[in-house]
């Protein structure tokens, strides 16, 4: 029997190395090389963390959505494991989006929190997927956990655009949005290119985390199974 805690496969290892190099390079680029917007000053550099993590958050929830549908279609636990792994990693990036958005908000708007449409949407997303992981943790049976998780993953994802539009309307109908959103003229390429580079770095990092997390989840599953078999054999 091969050890369930088999070492990281080539994909996991190489994506990890590439992610490390890219993130370090992206941080350096964003902090020291890229110029700064005249009006927004040095704090705007947090953009290089904030925007990529926001995109990766949405990507993660899209992965959960697709994997959930594939699970319900095929009943292959592989897809459920991918959804589970994407949720854990996606939650980290969503948290990072919220934290960096809040820090930016303190600088730009003078408050830690504002009911900006996008910030609010991300906060609700964070809650939905935290609950997704919580629900999964409360179900012991593999197939049942996978099915319930898939349903929550699908409904949660379909809810995202409705949440976004309702929050957006709610804010814009009540007060002019201009104070709340830094008006974004076309972004200069000197900013755009490192931003895209950082996004690519975060996506590679996310892929690495999902693969690593998936390996751990599978190892945990076979450990539990082996434990149960042992209990069974010893006649308990």
């Amino acid at each position, binding site marked *: 029997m091969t050890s369930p805690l088999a070492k990281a496969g080539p994909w996991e290892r190489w994506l990890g190395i590439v992610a490390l190099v890219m993130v370090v390079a992206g941080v350096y680029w964003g902090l020291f090389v890229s110029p700064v917007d005249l009006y927004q000053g040095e704090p705007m550099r947090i953009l290089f963390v904030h925007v990529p993590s926001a995109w990766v958050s949405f990507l993660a929830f899209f992965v959960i959505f697709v994997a959930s549908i594939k699970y319900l279609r095929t009943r292959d636990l592989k897809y459920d494991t991918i959804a589970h792994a994407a949720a854990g990693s996606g939650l980290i990036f969503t948290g990072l989006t919220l934290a960096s958005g809040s820090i930016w908000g303190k600088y730009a708007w003078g408050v830690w929190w504002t009911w900006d449409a996008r910030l609010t949407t991300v906060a*609700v997303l964070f809650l939905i997927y935290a609950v997704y992981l919580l*629900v999964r943790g*409360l179900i012991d049976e593999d197939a049942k956990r996978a099915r319930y998780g898939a*349903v929550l993953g699908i409904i949660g994802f*379909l809810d995202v655009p409705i*949440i976004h539009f*309702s929050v957006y309307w*709610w804010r814009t109908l009540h007060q002019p949005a201009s104070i709340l959103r830094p008006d974004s003229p076309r972004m200069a390429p000197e900013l755009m290119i490192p931003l895209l580079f950082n996004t690519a770095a975060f996506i590679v990092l996310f892929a690495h985390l999902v693969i690593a997390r998936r390996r751990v989840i599978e190892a945990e599953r076979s450990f539990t199974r082996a434990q149960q078999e042992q209990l069974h054999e010893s006649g308990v």
Partner: protein
Amino acid sequence: MWLSVIWALFRKDALLELRRRETLLAMGAFGVLSMLLYNFALPLDGDRARDLAPGLLWVSVTFTAMLGLGKAFAVEKQNDVMDALVMSPAPKAAIFLGKLASNFVFIAVIELFLIPLFAAFFPVQGNAPWGAMIGTLFLGSLGLATIGTLFSSITVAMRAREVIFPLVLLPLMVPVIIATSQALAAFLNGETTAAGAWLRMLGVADLIFMVASLWVFEFLVED
């Protein structure tokens, strides 16, 4: 077939409720209590009451509805009724619609009961468009009941279901909470156009929830 399944399930739940009066009594008492508490906790006088009232009404309804929705499937769990239902030739979606029908009607009954109290407790103008507001409440309750019915069928079998059900339901309900409160507020302030826009959003949300729930419900009950 569909209609008879829906009707049979609804009739069963309604009869049970008429005999035991558990859910509606608890919901009604809770609804009244929450409105009293708002009056104790918040400075609800004059204009302030009119600004706060629509949101408070809908939050009251949401929490009250949660009380009933959370245990909507508890009765099917006893004596394995759910297993029998699933094994029967009835379409799964019709079973869902039957449970949804009784949940929705329970919430609607509570709303009709809370509305006059609301008008008395919160000094809103007497000439408020009550018909439009009740319609708004019903539209909001439909979304609430749809997602509530769907996830109550999951959480009923789970550990810590009393805690987990609101945690699943409330974040998903954010758009319904916003749209319903805003539509109610708009009607109270005589802004019919804004109210119409919110009602459309509510309708779209209800539709998406309904279609998605009908699709995924069969996966929830298959064992």
